[in-house]
């Protein structure tokens, strides 16, 4: 693929989405639940070039509502991918040096196989016939993609939030394939509070009569329920302080309406976010993916089983005002790494943005990731070369 350079020097320009299909009829993917699924398509994008010894591949894995479009522009789009400030020439994931892959997840609705895909047996959308998937299933599917790309060992697996869970799962499932891991604003397992927020989101969707037990594809989305789920999500992604700074108690009009209208700016913002989300995300996918996050549990020694050597370097990042994935959860990852004496760096970055910080504090992330990645890439004896 040749990227057309846009005028901006460090932009990747126009990016074309790619798809990879595997697990066709004879060799279906065995899921953690015991069910089988296939064929499976994964949407992905790549930026930069794979080097001759295939040692410069970075896998980016994404959060709940993101997709494979991490950087550059899709034809006709005004906005770039969701982590464009981190990926491109000269950026944290420098595409002049690294071959960057961003893979979507199974269960999603952004070009990969999920509940809105056509079930080959019924020729109808799967709906709730789609099997329950887990983070480990998502990673197993990505492993097929990485094999398909001919990469035996990834330089790095990196992601925030649910992306961070996939990073940890990569280390647990395929430790020999991960030279360094960067889990950001994430956890080894969801706390009851995190499960509770997910469940409220799911209940909002399922309580919407338009959900129709998941068989809504002929009629249209349960928009109200999905929008409410997204609104709850957005509240948990911000912090008290960032909401104060962004909205305070500002009104949309001059005075109170004395009706149940959108008086406050914060209400308008949530409605806008909810409405935008239903246009781009499938309600059933929201159910499946949040369930996968809730099931995820690599606590204790499950990530790094005793007796197995660990050769993966870690950079663990958390954000001070993130109350959805509080820093104690990242410190629990660090605790496991210390117990195994794994070479690791941990930093809790100052921020008022809450969980959203992992998408916004890119300057700090860039500084840490750029150097960490560079030193890992140049080999472990870097200290002597400097």
């Amino acid at each position, binding site marked *: 693929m040749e990227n057309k350079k846009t005028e901006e020097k460090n932009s990747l320009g126009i990016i074309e989405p790619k798809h990879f299909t595997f697990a066709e009829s004879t060799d279906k993917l065995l899921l953690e639940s015991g069910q089988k699924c296939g064929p499976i398509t994964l949407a992905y994008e790549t930026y930069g070039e794979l080097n001759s010894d295939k040692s410069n591949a970075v896998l980016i894995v994404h959060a709940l509502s993101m997709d494979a479009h991490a950087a550059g522009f899709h034809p006709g789009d005004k906005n770039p991918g969701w982590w464009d400030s981190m990926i491109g020439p000269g950026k944290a994931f420098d595409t002049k040096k690294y071959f960057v892959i961003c893979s979507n997840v199974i269960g999603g609705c952004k070009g990969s196989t999920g509940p809105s895909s056509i079930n080959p047996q019924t020729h109808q959308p799967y709906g709730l016939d789609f099997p329950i998937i887990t983070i480990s299933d998502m990673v197993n599917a990505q492993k097929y993609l990485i094999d398909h790309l001919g990469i035996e060992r990834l330089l790095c697996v990196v992601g925030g939030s649910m992306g961070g869970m996939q990073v940890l799962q990569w280390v647990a499932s395929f430790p020999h394939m991960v030279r360094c891991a960067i889990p950001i604003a994430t956890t080894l397992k969801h706390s009851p509070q995190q499960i509770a927020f997910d469940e409220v989101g799911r209940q909002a969707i399922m309580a919407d009569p338009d959900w129709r037990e998941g068989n809504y594809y002929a009629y249209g989305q349960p928009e109200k329920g999905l929008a409410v789920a997204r609104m709850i999500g957005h509240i948990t992604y911000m912090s008290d302080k960032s909401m104060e700074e962004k909205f305070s108690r500002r009104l949309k009009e001059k005075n109170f309406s004395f009706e149940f209208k959108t008086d406050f700016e914060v209400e308008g913002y949530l409605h806008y976010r909810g409405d935008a989300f239903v246009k781009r995300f499938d309600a059933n996918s929201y159910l499946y993916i949040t369930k996968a996050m809730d099931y995820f549990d690599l606590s204790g020694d499950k990530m790094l089983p005793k007796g197995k050597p660990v050769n993966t370097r870690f950079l663990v990042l958390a954000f001070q005002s993130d109350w959805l994935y509080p820093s104690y959860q990242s410190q629990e990852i660090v605790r496991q790494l210390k117990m195994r004496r794994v070479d690791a760096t941990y930093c809790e970055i100052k921020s008022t943005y809450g969980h959203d910080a992992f998408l916004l504090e890119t300057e*700090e992330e860039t500084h840490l990731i750029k150097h960490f990645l560079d030193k890992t890439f140049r080999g472990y004896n870097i200290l002597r070369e400097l």
Partner: protein
Amino acid sequence: MTFKTVRLDHQIIYKIIEPGSRVLDLGCGEGDLIYFLAKEKAAKVQGIELSEEAIYKCVEKGLSVFHSDIDSGLMDYPDRSFDYVILNQSLQEVKRVDYVIKEAMRVGKKVIVGFPNFAHVAARLRLFFSGKAPVTLSLPYHWYDTPNLHFLSTSDFKDYCNEKHIEILNVFYLGKKKLIRFWPNLFAQNALFVINKP
């Protein structure tokens, strides 16, 4: 960076540590010491540091460092994880000195403790003649802005080791530019103790 431009306390620690050792530096700052040890002695180093800005500097150097205070940074390590645990110029700032030293000796086979000597002659003179809390080269802070929570002399630390049955393997008394041989508790600005729990 040549050896001679390296801080005296770092030069001494450098000499103490055997090549290839596993080293944990508590309060590693911008990582100058462990960088030096990794580069020149092929030591396998890990830092613990509270300042976010200092961590950025460490990561620039390619060092691995945990963002944490010293008091809570040690407990997760298994026994004898390191050949050396270094507590250089950070002991006087930790909250629970006794606990940290005990933990450091559990986690490390040997512990190197470095601190400013409160009984240095300059400090004594200032206290004696002006009646004011000492502000000296090794204790450069005022009473109101010092990060130091504990003030101790080399004799105090020896007493402490005796009382706690800690073995002192070696002591170095540091002047401004060289080691001090005579009347160390009077003339040493800083001291480095190598200790362990027999």
